[in-house]
């Protein structure tokens, strides 16, 4: 596949990105752009390769991986730095200043043996050549900005003296302290309960606004995607399934996988009101007290070392036909920035609920 040029206004431009462990390719040819101040969601399940993609954006892949394709990050206006194959110092010069990472599991993401303020100050001093006291002052200011009370005193405390919510905020403060152009957040809300999830997404949004950064949000939660992102890229088994403006993709999914994920979400609104929304077409519980079924995708996602031939979703897909087992589909553009990788994208019904109603065993 020829490498398409970056969109003229893109901050971050990824073309045919491939990441492999030895001979095992885990990310299999991703292309997307991130524009200034845009929020892009990378959606996928375990083994989809979304976390590796996130690390490839920062040149922080684990040892033993090989990367090909192109990840270009706008450095000075008009000039791009290529991250794939870049030297370690070149990558280090971009991190923090141009692009920063909020790792998953933020509760363990701070060093346990360093005061929180010192950790933020270390980031400042590595990127901007300022004095120790100036760095410390900026660290306190950053903690204050994310709403940590009594930030001057708190900056001297260790992570174990912080509450869970405060640690999350401190992590976001550290990732944004050098005012990067792009923030990559790898599952920042996974394993958190609903309240903390909201809090983290709010602080992340505020900081993104404050420093004017674009955000790449890696998640498996479509609920988060709908409320917090501009564009979405859905991944399955290392490939792009569907990409486009969030409202277009979620309101009219063209790939059966996306449609199935949406259909299988329990309806958000209250029970037994009878009205079938566009997504929540699932029959609700009747007055009899018997449980009704959710639309469900059969089977489970494949392990990266056991991918089926052709379309990786084919064994689970209700629209599967012969060529799905032979040819990898697409991607095809189906509308304003909306791309889909499915041989039968124009046959995906709307809503897709009926397609995924399992028959009871």
């Amino acid at each position, binding site marked *: 596949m020829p490498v398409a040029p970056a969109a003229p206004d893109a901050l971050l431009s990824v073309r045919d990105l491939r990441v492999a462990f030895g001979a095992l390719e885990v990310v299999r040819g991703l292309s997307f752009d991130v524009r200034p101040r845009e929020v892009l969601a990378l959606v996928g399940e375990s083994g989809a390769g979304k976390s590796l993609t996130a690390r490839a954006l920062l040149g922080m892949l684990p040892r033993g991986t090989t990367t090909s394709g192109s990840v270009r990050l706008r450095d000075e206006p008009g000039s791009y730095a290529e991250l794939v194959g870049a030297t370690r110092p070149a990558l280090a010069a971009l991190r923090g200043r141009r692009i920063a990472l909020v790792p998953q599991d933020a509760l363990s993401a701070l060093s346990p043996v360093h005061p929180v303020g010192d950790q933020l100050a270390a980031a400042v001093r590595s990127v901007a050549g300022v004095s120790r006291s100036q760095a410390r002052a900026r660290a306190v200011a950053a903690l204050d900005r994310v709403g940590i009370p009594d930030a001057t005193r708190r900056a001297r405390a260790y992570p174990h003296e912080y509450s869970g919510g405060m640690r999350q905020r401190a992590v976001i403060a550290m990732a944004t302290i050098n005012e990067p152009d792009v923030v990559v957040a790898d599952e920042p809300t996974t394993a958190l309960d609903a309240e903390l999830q909201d809090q983290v997404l709010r602080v992340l949004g505020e900081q993104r606004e404050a420093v004017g950064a674009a955000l790449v949000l890696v998640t498996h939660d479509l609920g988060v995607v709908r409320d917090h992102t501009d564009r979405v890229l859905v991944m399955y088994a290392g490939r792009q399934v569907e990409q486009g403006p969030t409202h277009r993709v979620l309101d009219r999914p063209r790939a059966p996988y996306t449609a199935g994920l949406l259909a299988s979400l329990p309806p958000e609104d209250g029970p037994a009101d009878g009205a079938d929304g566009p997504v929540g077409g699932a029959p609700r519980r009747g007055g009899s007290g018997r449980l009704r079924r959710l639309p469900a*995708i059969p089977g489970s996602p494949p392990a990266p070392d056991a991918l089926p031939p052709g379309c990786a979703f084919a064994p689970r897909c209700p629209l599967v036909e012969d060529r799905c087992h032979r040819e990898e589909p697409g991607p095809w553009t189906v509308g304003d920035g909306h791309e889909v990788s499915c041989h039968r994208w124009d046959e995906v019904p709307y809503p897709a609920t009926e397609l995924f109603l399992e028959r009871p065993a």
Partner: protein
Amino acid sequence: MNQPTALLDVRDLVVRYGTVTAVDHVSFTVDAGETLALNGPSGCGKSSTVAAVLQLRRPDGGRVRFEGRELTTLTERELRPLRPRMQPVFQDPYGSLSPRHRVRDSVAEPLRVQGRWDATGPARVAALLDRVGLDPAYGDRFPHELSGGQCQRAGIARALASEPRLLVLDEPVSALDPSVRAGVLNLLADLQDDLGLAYLFICHDRAVVRHFADRAVEMRGGRLVPA
């Protein structure tokens, strides 16, 4: 709701760890065949409640009546024959199966432990696996050779082998991939319809609770609060 007929009747349950009160005078009932959701943020005492209801950790106060019998006053030995009637399903799909044993043996274990293993045993295990939507051929595998969803189904099969009337579901789908959650929830719904099981369903996802439960109670800081 008739108190005397409740399958599970929990009154003023208290669980303490040292000076910390994790569960503070919690009361609820679960009727036969119904689903009660216990909803709340992490650290609110849901897991302690589960352990105390199952008598896996003896509560520090209150009563737990199950099928009309008071469990808190029974000795471990007296409790043992009653335990199969209430079975847990854990959040970690790999947690309830021994990593050293084949899935088939883990599912068969309740039959052996409870002295119900006979010539029909293997067929019953195969039927249980089939019932939860697993190809009985998976019985030859070890837990780590199954996906999370398959493992959770095997864990449910194992729980069913004890022929329970109440399943205590501790976040049974929150560790699963999104595309397999609905399938496991549907399985649980079918089992309830077919076997008349009662569920105590621990969950922090409100949408799932609304869809799945007959009634819901909300827990915060060890106490029940109005939902």
